């Protein structure tokens, strides 16, 4: 191979990279390979905390994301919802993002409706929806949900909702989980909710956002579901304990196939570029 070919390895046209990635991901979507995961160190504490709650203990899930990050975060919301409904824990959905109302609607439509047809809105779950304010909303909810939410998204007053019978403020929740794609999100929940209140706080975040939350683990965050892998690990924990009550292959586990292939393609191109650099440099040194 001539020196120019090694140099070519260092400057592959980006369109070839795009094409290779597209072909690999489409092939993985068609073939649907399933890679089983196992619950990791960051996810186990969240699963165990929900497992330890007595039936009837309310759980709050804050859906702080939009459709762009839903492929990573929605599987977490779905897995948490399944776990809570199986354990008999009423779920409250709210959101610091304006898109949150519909994100909650999608969980109801895609998970609760088809898989738990006996679940009743208001009893097994309630959607409070979006309110503006970010960190100020979290702060206001510490003492009283009613200070910012007069009713749920259907217009039913909070006092008439059985799922909220035990709830005055955030401290009455067995656990609060923020699934966050940015600001406002998990960071605001840590600083203005978990650190000030007396409730366990856990989180889920996108892959790019994960590094910023590690300083909060494990003292300020009980656990962290990082990216699709975090969701797949939670699904694996559900499959281990409730194999007969949840789908065998859930959303995140299915998504790990294309993600694995995409990562491998990226690694292959990184190695190719470095191989070109390494061999090219050696040839240059040899010529000298």
């Amino acid at each position, binding site marked *: 191979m001539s020196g120019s070919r090694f140099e070519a390895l260092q400057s592959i046209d980006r369109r070839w*990279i795009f094409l290779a990635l597209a072909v690999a991901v489409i092939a993985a979507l068609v073939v649907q390979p399933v890679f089983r995961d196992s619950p990791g160190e960051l996810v186990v504490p969240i699963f165990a905390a929900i497992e330890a709650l007595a039936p009837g203990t309310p759980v709050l899930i804050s859906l702080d994301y939009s459709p*762009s990050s839903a492929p990573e975060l929605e599987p977490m919301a779905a897995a948490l919802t399944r776990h809570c409904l199986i354990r008999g824990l009423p779920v409250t959905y709210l959101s610091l993002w304006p898109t949150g109302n519909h994100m909650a609607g999608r969980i109801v439509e895609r998970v609760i409706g088809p898989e738990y047809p006996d679940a009743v809105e208001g009893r097994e779950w309630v*959607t409070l929806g979006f309110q503006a304010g970010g960190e100020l909303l979290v702060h206001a909810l510490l003492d009283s949900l009613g200070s910012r939410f007069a009713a749920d*998204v259907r217009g039913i007053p909070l006092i008439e909702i059985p799922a909220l019978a035990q709830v005055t403020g955030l401290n009455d929740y067995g656990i609060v989980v923020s699934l966050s794609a940015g600001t406002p999100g998990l960071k605001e929940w840590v600083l203005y909710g978990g650190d000030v209140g007396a409730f366990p706080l856990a989180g889920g975040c996108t892959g790019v956002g994960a590094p910023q939350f590690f300083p909060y683990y494990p003292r300020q965050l009980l656990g962290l579901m990082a990216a699709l892998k975090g969701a797949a690990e939670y699904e694996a924990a559900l499959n281990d304990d409730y194999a007969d009550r949840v789908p065998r292959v859930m959303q995140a586990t299915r998504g790990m196939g294309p993600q694995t292939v995409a990562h491998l393609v990226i*690694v292959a191109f990184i190695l190719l570029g470095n191989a070109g650099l390494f061999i090219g440099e050696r040839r240059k040194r040899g010529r000298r």
Partner: protein
Amino acid sequence: MKRPTPQILLTGVALILVVAAFMAPPGDGSSGGFAGAVTYADRHFSSWFGILAVFAFLLGGASLLRTHGRRVRERKADWHYSAVTLVSFLAVLIVGFLKLGGPPGLTGDPTDASSWLTTIFDSVLSPLHATLYSLLAFYVASASYRAFRARSLETSVLLGAALIVLLGRIPVGVTLFRFDSLSLWLLKVPNTAGQRALMIGVALGVVALAVRMVLGLERGRGGDGS
């Protein structure tokens, strides 16, 4: 300072909130006196933000209409995009306000499956968001290929960390190389150290900026027009 009122408001509210955050006694603020006022502020100021937010939304909407309306009227460069923005904004606003297709009235659920807003969300917004976000994967792949080159010691460390994290986050990397623990260690130890340094530095900067604003030293606040 030309306008002292905004500065007095800012300083007053900021001081009350700082005192409330550190010293608010328990209760609902009905005890009266300074302690009662501080507690009341701590409990209620954050709720008042909801009222302010409504005005901010109105202001934002009006500003959008004015800015893009002018661009369309004056046929400025790329005015077509402004027209699309205006039409989309008004269409969603009308559909949302009138709760078309879904349960009517002030308390009607906007997320109801039958509402037009849900149709717009599912058929327009979701695919657009998904498409834009998916493109990132392609740019990340291309950027990784170009950036991660072992040209020096520092870039070699970066390359090594990138490969470990990339492989440690997929089942194949975990099974073949057992990179999961190493990847987690990278995130938990070196990453946390760097993140903490960054967070503490930023926090100190924010405190300094807040103090300057409270004292009226920050230019651009208090109506001096800068």
